[in-house]
C-alpha cells in the first residue's frame, strides 16, 4: 500500500482550514528544503536550492484543500443543515458518511426514503433539502457536539483495488501534494519554489498571493482532473483515461497554456518514454489562470492526474498515472532551462 498517499488523503483540509494537511507536509519537507515560509493565507512556500542557481523563479504548485461541507443550522430535532465549501453536486450526497468538526463526530446525510417520495416529486433533492443525522435527540443535544460553522468532511478510507487503482477522498489534489513532496526529495537541476496552496476549491485564492510572493517566470501546476472514461456514452466524453499517464492541457476555462511548454511536455514525455495524454476537452480550470495572470504574467503549464468521480466522497485514480506524473514533472524540470 502507498502509505504516504494513504496518509495524505486521510487528512481533512477544507478550503480555509488546511492546517492538518499543512502540518503533515511541513514535517515531511522541512529536512529537504532550504527555506520554508507559511504566508498569511496559509500557503506553504518552500524553496530548495538546485545544482545550479535559477536565472529566475520557477514554481511548482499543488493545492492542499479539498471540497467539503459546512454546518449552517441545527434544527429542533437535532438534524443539521449544511452548505458546500467548493463545488459539490447534491446528487452524490444522500447516504454519505461524514465527520463533523475538529472532534470528528460521525453523521450520515439523510434523505427522504423512496417510500415517501410522491409521484412527480424530484427524486434528487437540492442541497438545502438534505440534512445530516448525527444521532442527536434534539437541538440541545446536538449543540453539545457541533456548532454552526463546523466543517464537515467525507469519511472515506483509502483503499487500493483492481490493477494499480486506488479509491480515496481528496485525491484532488493530495495526489499533487504527494508528487511535489517526492520531487522535493530528489536533487534538483536548479533552484525551485514549491507551493502547497490553500483555498483552490473556492476560487484559487491561495495561488494568487503565492504567485505574488514568488513572482515566478515559469509555473507548473500539478492537479487532479476529471476522467469520464467509464460508463460514458461516447469516446469523446471521456476527456481523459485512467492508466494512460498524466494529462496535459492546452486550454481550459482558466487559461490557454503556454504553447512552448505544452510542446516541451509532449517532447519530454516522448524522449523519456513516459505515457502522457492530452486533455480532450476545454473544460474545468485550476490555479494556472490565476498564476499566469498575476503581476506581469508568467508561462504556465498544468499536469494532472486523471481521477474519476472528482469532488465526491470517493474518487478513483491509477497509482501508475501518479508515478508517471511525478516522473514527467521531474523530467520537465530538467529540460526547462
Amino acid at each position, binding site marked *: 500500500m502507498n502509505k504516504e498517499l494513504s496518509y495524505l488523503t486521510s487528512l481533512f483540509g477544507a478550503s480555509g482550514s488546511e492546517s492538518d494537511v499543512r502540518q503533515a507536509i511541513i514535517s515531511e519537507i522541512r529536512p529537504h528544503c532550504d527555506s520554508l515560509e507559511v504566508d498569511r493565507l496559509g500557503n506553504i512556500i518552500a524553496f530548495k536550492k538546485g545544482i545550479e542557481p535559477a536565472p529566475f523563479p520557477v514554481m511548482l504548485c499543488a493545492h492542499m484543500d479539498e471540497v467539503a461541507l459546512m454546518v449552517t443550522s441545527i434544527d429542533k430535532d437535532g438534524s443539521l443543515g449544511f452548505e458546500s465549501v467548493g463545488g459539490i453536486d447534491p446528487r452524490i450526497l444522500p447516504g454519505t458518511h461524514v465527520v463533523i468538526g475538529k472532534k470528528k463526530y460521525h453523521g450520515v446525510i439523510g434523505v427522504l426514503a423512496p417510500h415517501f417520495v410522491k409521484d412527480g416529486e424530484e427524486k434528487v433533492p437540492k442541497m438545502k433539502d438534505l440534512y445530516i443525522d448525527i444521532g442527536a435527540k434534539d437541538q440541545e443535544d446536538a449543540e453539545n457536539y457541533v456548532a454552526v460553522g463546523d466543517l464537515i468532511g467525507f469519511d472515506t478510507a483509502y483503499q487500493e483495488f483492481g490493477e494499480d487503482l486506488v479509491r480515496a477522498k481528496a485525491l484532488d489534489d493530495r495526489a499533487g501534494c504527494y508528487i511535489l513532496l517526492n520531487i522535493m526529495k530528489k536533487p534538483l537541476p536548479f533552484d525551485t519554489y514549491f507551493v502547497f496552496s490553500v483555498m483552490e476549491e473556492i476560487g484559487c485564492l491561495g495561488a494568487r498571493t503565492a504567485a505574488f510572493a514568488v513572482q515566478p517566470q515559469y509555473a507548473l501546476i500539478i492537479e487532479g482532473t476529471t476522467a469520464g472514461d467509464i460508463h460514458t456514452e461516447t469516446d469523446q466524453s471521456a476527456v481523459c483515461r485512467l492508466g494512460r499517464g498524466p494529462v496535459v492541457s492546452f*486550454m481550459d476555462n482558466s487559461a490557454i497554456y503556454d*504553447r512552448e511548454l505544452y510542446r516541451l511536455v509532449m517532447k519530454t514525455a516522448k524522449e523519456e518514454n513516459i505515457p502522457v495524454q*492530452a486533455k480532450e476537452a476545454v473544460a474545468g480550470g485550476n490555479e494556472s489562470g490565476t498564476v499566469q495572470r498575476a503581476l*506581469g504574467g508568467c508561462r504556465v503549464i498544468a499536469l494532472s492526474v486523471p481521477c474519476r468521480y472528482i469532488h465526491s466522497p470517493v474518487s478513483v485514480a491509477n497509482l501508475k498515472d501518479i508515478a508517471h506524473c511525478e516522473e514527467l514533472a521531474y523530467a520537465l524540470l530538467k529540460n526547462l532551462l
Partner: protein
Amino acid sequence: MINQLKELVSKKSVSGNERVVASYIKEQILPYADKVYEDALGNLIAVRRGEGPKVMVMAHMDEIGLVATFADDKGFIRVSAVGGVHPQKTAGRPVIFENGVMGVFVAGKEQKMSDCYIDIGAKDQRDALSRIEIGMTASFVTETFETGEKIVSGALDNRIGCFCLIEALKRLKNCSCEFYAVFTVQEEVGLRGAKVSGFEIAPEVALAVDVTLSGDHPEGADTSASLGKGCAIKMRDRSAICSREVVEDLENLAARKGIPIQRDVLSSGGTDIGSVQLLGKGVQVGGLSIPIRYCHSAIEMADRKDVEATIALLLAYLEK
C-alpha cells in the same frame, strides 16, 4: 491600407497562439520605437520616449477561432470555441489549422458548439491524428477586399485596430507622452493579455483601439455606431465606463482638428481597458473604436474613412 491589412489578416492568430502575427508586427514597428519587447504571455510592447504622462494604447492581436479537442472514429475533428464563435455565423466556412491543414467547419442542425466539427477529409481517427494534433488551433479562411469605401475581411476584429496602432507609431512625430503601444494577446477569451501588460507598465492613461458593433444594417446591433461616420469614441461597454476626462480630451481634439467622430455606447462586449482600469492605483481609460458590421463572422466590414479618422485622432492625442 488594403495591402498591409491583407498581410496582417493572412497571419493567423487565434487567442493564445499569436506568435506569427506578433513577429510580423514587430518587424513593422522596430524602426519606429525606442524599445520593443515581448512579455511572458506574448504581448508585444513598443515604447516611444517622450516628456509627459505614461500613456498605454492597446490593440489586441488575437482573433476568435477553434481548437481541436478530439478526433472521432471516422476522423471528424471535434472542436471547442476559442472566444465568441457563433456557429450560425461561421458554419460552412473553410478553416485552416496552424500547420496548414485545411477543412470545413460544420455545424449540427441546432448549431450548438458541442455538435460542431471540422471535416479535414480524413479516412479515420488515425489518419486525422497523423495530420493534426489535439490542441491545435484553426482559423476561418477569409478573403480581404475592397468594395466602394468599405473594406471586407475576416479578423478585422482586431487587425484593423493593430493597423491603426502600427500607423500611429509610423506617423508619430512629436510624442508628448511616454507612449507604450501594446499589441495584446488573449483579448477574445477575457481581456487576459492586457491585464499583465497593464500591471507591468502601470500607465496613467490607457486607450483601447478596437472594433465596435454597428447598428446601421438589417438586424444590426442596437447601437448608434455607423460605418463612415468617423472614429467612435467609447463611452462605455460591458467591461468599463470610460473616464470623462479622456472622452472630453478626445472630443475636443477631434473638434479642433476637424476629425469626424461619433460615440460608441456598447451594451455588450468588452475591451482591454476593462482589465486595466482597476490595476494598481487605478488608470484613466478610454477607447477609439472602429464600427464594423458582421462582427465575429468570417467576413466583417469596416469603412476606410473611420480607420483614417481613428489614426488621425490617436496621433492628435499622442502629440497634444
